[in-house]
C-alpha cells in the first residue's frame, strides 16, 4: 500500500511528443558529382600527356648527351690520356723524391730489377697497387667505388649539415 509521497507513473509529455524529422538528410553539396568526375578525368588525361611528354624529353636529352659524347670522344679520350700521364709523371717524381736516400733503388724498378723483363721499351700500365702508393686508402676505395657516386659533383644541400671529417663517408 503506497502511503506518504505520491508515486507518479512515467507518462509522455502533455500534448504528446513533438514531430521529428524522419526524412533522408543529404550532405551540403560543394560541387556536383559530375564536376568531380570531370576533374579526375582531366587530371588523369593531363597526367598521361605529361608522362608521354616527359618520356620524350628524357629520350631527347639522352640522345643529345650521347651525340655530344660521340662528337667529343677524341677530345675526351685525349684529355683522359693526358690526365692519366700527368698522374704517372707525378707518381714517378714522387717516387724519385721519396726513395732518393734508399741505397740501390732505381725509380720504377724493384732495386734495379724491372717489374717486367720482356717488355723492353714498351709501356705497361701500373695497377692500382702502385698508383695509389702515395695516397691514403680512402682514395683507392673512392676510385674503386666511383660507379656508385652521383653524377652531380657540385655542392649539395646537406654540405652544411655535417662536419668536414664526416663528408668522406658519404658522397
Amino acid at each position, binding site marked *: 500500500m503506497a502511503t506518504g509521497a505520491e508515486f507518479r507513473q512515467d507518462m509522455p509529455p502533455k500534448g504528446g511528443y513533438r514531430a521529428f524529422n524522419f526524412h533522408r538528410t543529404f550532405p551540403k553539396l560543394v560541387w556536383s558529382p559530375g564536376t568531380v568526375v570531370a576533374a579526375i578525368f582531366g587530371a588523369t588525361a593531363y597526367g598521361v600527356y605529361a608522362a608521354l611528354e616527359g618520356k620524350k624529353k628524357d629520350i631527347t636529352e639522352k640522345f643529345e648527351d650521347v651525340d655530344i659524347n660521340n662528337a667529343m670522344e677524341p677530345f675526351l679520350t685525349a684529355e683522359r690520356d693526358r690526365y692519366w700521364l700527368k698522374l704517372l709523371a707525378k707518381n714517378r717524381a714522387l717516387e724519385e723524391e721519396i726513395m732518393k736516400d734508399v741505397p740501390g733503388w732505381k725509380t720504377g724498378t724493384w732495386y734495379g730489377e724491372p717489374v717486367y723483363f720482356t717488355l723492353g721499351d714498351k709501356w705497361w*700500365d701500373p695497377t692500382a697497387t702502385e698508383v695509389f702508393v702515395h*695516397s691514403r686508402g680512402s682514395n683507392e676505395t673512392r676510385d674503386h667505388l666511383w660507379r656508385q657516386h652521383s653524377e652531380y659533383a657540385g655542392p649539395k644541400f646537406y654540405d652544411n649539415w655535417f662536419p668536414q671529417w664526416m663528408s668522406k663517408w658519404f658522397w
Partner: protein
Amino acid sequence: MATGNRNPENFTSLSPIVKAPITDTLSVPLSQQGRICGFFESQFYRCMEAYGAKMGRKYCDLEHRDFQECVTGDKQKKRADAIREQRCKLFLDGKIAKPYVDNHPEPGQFKTDHFQWNRIN
C-alpha cells in the same frame, strides 16, 4: 702428368687432362685470355711452343716470370710496400709533413688501359 708437358709451376694453373680440340675450346675460362694478363700468357705459351716443353723451361724463364708477376703482382706489391715504408719513415723523422699526398689521384685520374696491345672493344 706422364706426358711431360707440364709447366714449370706445380699445379698452380689448370689444364685439361685429355688434349683435344674440344677441350682446348672449353678450357678458355681456365686461362687469362680476355683479362689483363692475357698478353703475358700468350707470350709465354708462344715461347714454350717454340722451344718445346724441355728447352722452354730454360729459355722461356723471363716470359714465365713476367706472366707470374702479372698474375700475382709480387714485385709491384713489394715496391708499393717499400715506398710506403719509406714515406712513413720520412714522416716519423719529420722530413715530410704527411705520410701521404692529399687528394693525390683526383677522382677519375686513375685510368689504366691494359688492352692497348690487343684492343677488345
